[in-house]
């Protein structure tokens, strides 16, 4: 199973190469993999249906209890099959839909990566692995929504989807960590098998709220539903795949997955049923206002997601059956409907239902498929949507929910019927309307997906028992955590559910007949809707930008001195506080000091003081050099030749750098006031005192035996080296060194970029780029505190910029 997930990613990486060879056939070749995986997963159906769980173990980071173990039970099998099966047709569809698009390979890479992430998500046994895949789906979704990134509103929609889902993801991570610490394991298997009652754990409320925040944002539950319709900015294959059939159901999957452990409490029921029901109604209500085919479908997806949450909240055996059936039914018809909407858009050039009509003769197959899929959406027999809807209503009627929720359900169901009617009838019946493009039937690649999916809807509706036994009920059993005693059937007899169905059907047809007047009445509510949760999102984003500006101007004001001051003061305060709180200082003077050591120390101090008070730049530089070489002398005295050599070399190179920039530096002068100099002196003295104290304490207190003994002992036998410093650098602590050389490389790149890409050298460069470099008035006059190359180059830059400007003015 690990291989199944990884194969998709590997194939995704090969797409550009494949595209170079096979051009338009690429997507069909790619589709072979999910098709094969569908068959591969299908072989597990009998085993899973008999109640088994298949686990493929693989250690990943055992030290952190993170594994790449995959688990296949009814629920994950159902999801895996849907992902691979629908994914196959989406790939074929996308290849034709975006034919000739210059970025098609990029699209396919991301789509495949999404498929792999989604599959990994539903198969993961480990909570952290699950989270990693969860976030991967958010990121790939972001990239796919923003596919047409040259349009500003598309970028905005993509960012909105990302921020909402990733913010939820953050809460989810917290929830998962709480869950794992409460259950004592990151493995879902172990959590299920342990006897702990998580619902009575003190962390229960916290973890539930965090987990639900994650699930609600991902699955577009109210009040986070607004990102989903905006995500329709994505190309249609993406909407069909991510934003109806798979990704938005990730949150639903998570709730279903955790239902046996966390479900059943009053809090769970209250949260899920109320949010679910409200989301359902919001979706249905907003759908009926829309005239854009994709928006209609998107809002009806919100409605379906609400329904699924509601069913999970009810938590009875019947509700679980309804949940699984509804999920499958919805994925089939909604995936098909989105693809059909894409076909209409593709062939006519518009998605506005008010501008479409009479297409049934021009696009007969599309029309028939849409009609059948919409029947399933409306919940009409003999389609699988009907089976699911009857079960859902049955579960609702038999539950102890308040009648208000039942009323919401009836209203939503009626509106759902109306939406289905709008989608199926408006574009295809009535008089033929003029469209931007001359409409004709779509090619086979585009039709393959919808035809297969709607046929499947029909077949499963005609044979609900078979579909139920092998496919739906095992999934329901995983959520219910017990074998389910029941079966799916098309005809439930005359009961309340059927009555509600009929009432909602009648109401729905009524709404459809009067759709135009309904829309104009509802448009009166527009001001209210504009103040909905989405407005809150925008206010939140504005707030973030405001805070970012405030803290940037506070902390990143471009003055080297203020940076150093804040870094050093933070260090002094935090370390100093810990020091005074935790340790007693003992003055330990019985250290024997030789005369030559005292002389070098005095030299060091004199040089440092000179560097501070001198009135010549060259003098300051020379004094700093003396400081550096004195330190090197100390290293030599205390037998650390490597450090001494390094120190001397660095000092030498610093001089070289200085020589290069010396003539570009502005004239030496006292820029800062006496008060500022006093403040800087205070900071410097404070730091020096703290460091001295720290060193004295490290001599005084030994909490652990020093590690240097171990290194000295083992340097020769283990690392075959006598130079311990080098052994530490390249062997014991090689990872640190690796990090450091990367930092060094980055620093060099930064310096290079600052020197080479300046406003006056790079045409068209940002005119403010130069102001990133120190403005002259903040230039530290003596530059005694730092002689690091980067600072120097910064100074040289700003001054040279100034020089060149002067030159221009002079001309």
């Amino acid at each position, binding site marked *: 199973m690990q291989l199944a997930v990884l194969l998709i990613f590997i194939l995704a990486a090969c797409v550009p190469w494949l595209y170079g060879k096979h051009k338009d056939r690429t997507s069909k070749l790619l589709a072979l993999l999910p098709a094969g995986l569908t068959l591969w997963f299908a072989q597990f159906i009998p085993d899973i249906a008999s109640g088994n769980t298949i686990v493929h173990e693989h250690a990943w980071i055992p030290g952190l209890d993170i594994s790449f173990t995959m688990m296949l039970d009814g629920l994950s099998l159902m999801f895996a099959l849907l992902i691979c099966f629908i994914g196959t047709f989406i790939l074929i569809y996308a290849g034709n839909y975006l034919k000739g698009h210059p970025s098609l390979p990029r699209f396919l890479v991301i789509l495949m990566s999404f498929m792999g992430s989604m599959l990994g998500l539903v198969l993961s046994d480990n909570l952290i692995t699950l989270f990693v895949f969860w976030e991967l789906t958010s990121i790939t979704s972001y990239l796919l929504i923003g596919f047409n990134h040259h349009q500003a509103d598309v970028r905005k929609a993509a960012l909105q989807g990302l921020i909402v889902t990733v913010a939820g993801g953050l809460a989810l991570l917290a929830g998962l960590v709480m869950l794992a610490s409460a259950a004592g394991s990151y493995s879902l298997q172990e959590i299920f098998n342990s006897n702990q009652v998580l619902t009575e754990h003190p962390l229960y409320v916290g973890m539930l709220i965090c987990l639900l925040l994650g699930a609600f944002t991902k699955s577009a539950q109210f009040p986070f539903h607004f990102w989903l319709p905006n995500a329709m900015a994505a190309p249609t294959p993406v909407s069909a795949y991510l934003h109806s059939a798979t990704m938005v159901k990730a949150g639903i999957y998570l709730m279903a997955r955790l239902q046996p452990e966390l479900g059943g409490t009053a809090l769970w029921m209250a949260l899920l049923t109320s949010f679910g029901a409200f989301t359902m109604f919001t979706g249905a209500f907003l759908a009926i206002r829309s005239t854009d085919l994709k928006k209609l479908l998107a809002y009806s997806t919100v409605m379906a997601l609400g329904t699924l949450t509601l069913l999970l909240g009810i938590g009875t055996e019947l509700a679980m059956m309804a949940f699984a059936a509804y999920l499958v039914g919805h994925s089939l018809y909604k995936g098909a409907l989105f693809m059909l909407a894409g076909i209409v858009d593709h062939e006519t050039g518009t998605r506005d239902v008010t501008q479409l009509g009479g297409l049934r003769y021009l696009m007969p197959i599309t029309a028939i498929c849409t009609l059948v899929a919409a029947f399933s959406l409306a919940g009409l027999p003999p389609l699988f949507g009907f089976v699911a809807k009857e079960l859902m209503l049955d579960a609702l009627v038999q539950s102890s929910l308040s009648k208000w929720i039942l009323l919401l359900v009836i209203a939503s169901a009626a509106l759902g019927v109306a939406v289905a009617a709008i989608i199926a009838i408006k574009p295809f019946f009535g008089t033929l309307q003029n469209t931007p493009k001359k409409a004709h039937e779509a090619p086979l690649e585009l039709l393959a997906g919808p035809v297969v999916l709607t046929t499947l809807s029909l077949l499963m509706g005609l044979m609900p028992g078979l579909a139920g036994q092998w496919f739906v009920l095992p999934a329901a059993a995983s959520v219910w955590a017990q074998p389910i005693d029941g079966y799916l059937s098309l005809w439930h007899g005359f009961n309340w559910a059927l009555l509600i169905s009929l009432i909602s059907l009648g109401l729905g047809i009524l709404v459809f007949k009067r759709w135009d007047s309904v829309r104009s009445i509802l448009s009166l509510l527009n001001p209210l809707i504009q103040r909905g949760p989405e407005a809150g999102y925008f206010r939140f984003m504005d707030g973030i930008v405001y805070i970012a500006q405030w803290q940037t101007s506070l902390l990143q004001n471009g003055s080297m001195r203020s940076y150093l001051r804040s870094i050093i003061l933070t260090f002094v305060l935090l370390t100093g506080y810990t020091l005074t709180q935790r340790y007693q200082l003992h003055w330990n003077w019985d250290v024997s000091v030789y005369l030559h050591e005292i002389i070098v120390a005095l030299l060091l101090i004199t040089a440092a003081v000179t560097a501070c008070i001198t009135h010549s730049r060259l003098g300051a530089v020379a004094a700093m050099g003396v400081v550096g070489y004195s330190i090197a002398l100390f290293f030599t005295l205390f037998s650390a030749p490597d450090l001494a050599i390094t120190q001397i070399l660095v000092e030498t190179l610093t001089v070289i750098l200085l020589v290069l920039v010396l003539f570009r530096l502005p004239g030496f002068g006292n820029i800062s006031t006496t008060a500022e100099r006093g403040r800087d002196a205070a900071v410097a003295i404070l730091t020096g005192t703290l460091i001295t104290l720290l060193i004295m304490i490290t001599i005084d207190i030994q909490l652990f035996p020093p590690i240097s003994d171990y290194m000295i002992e083992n340097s020769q036998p283990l690392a075959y080296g006598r130079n311990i410093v080098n052994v530490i650098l390249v062997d014991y602590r090689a990872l640190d060194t690796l990090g450091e*050389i990367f930092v060094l490389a980055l620093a060099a*790149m930064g310096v290079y970029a600052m020197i080479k890409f300046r406003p006056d050298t790079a045409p068209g460069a940002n005119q403010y780029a130069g102001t990133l470099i120190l403005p002259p008035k903040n230039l530290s006059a003596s530059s005694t505190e730092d002689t690091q190359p980067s600072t120097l180059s910064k100074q040289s830059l700003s001054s040279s910029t100034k020089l060149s400007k002067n030159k221009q003015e002079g001309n």
Partner: protein
Amino acid sequence: MMKPGTLILHVAARFLVPLQLVFSIFLLLRGHNEPGGGFIAGLVASGAFALYLFTFGAAVTRDLMRVDPRNLIGIGLLIAMISALPAWFHGQAFLTSQWWPILLPGGTEIKLSTPLFFDIGVYVTVLGSVMTMLVALTETEER
């Protein structure tokens, strides 16, 4: 602002630069047992090229180095990363050192090892980083 160096500097650089480079490689190779190592050796080599840079200017130094110093950074990081990989084939942790002693005829033993390659990576990265900065600065001066 910088004129090409004096005659003495010219002659000295011609002789000193190769010596310094050889010395840097000596430092690099002996680093595991005696004072030295990739970082120090890289600095010494940078010093050598810096001398050349002062004497003959940026263009000539670039010619002498043959490889763009910016590319050296990448090459160095790559060598260091590659030296981390052999441990994986033994199922050991990332960067665990591997040793392949080779006994030459005459009793001399050459110890090839991943830490050596790692150190070479450090050497090249340090050389590349310092020279990138120096050459870039010098080119700004010369313009």
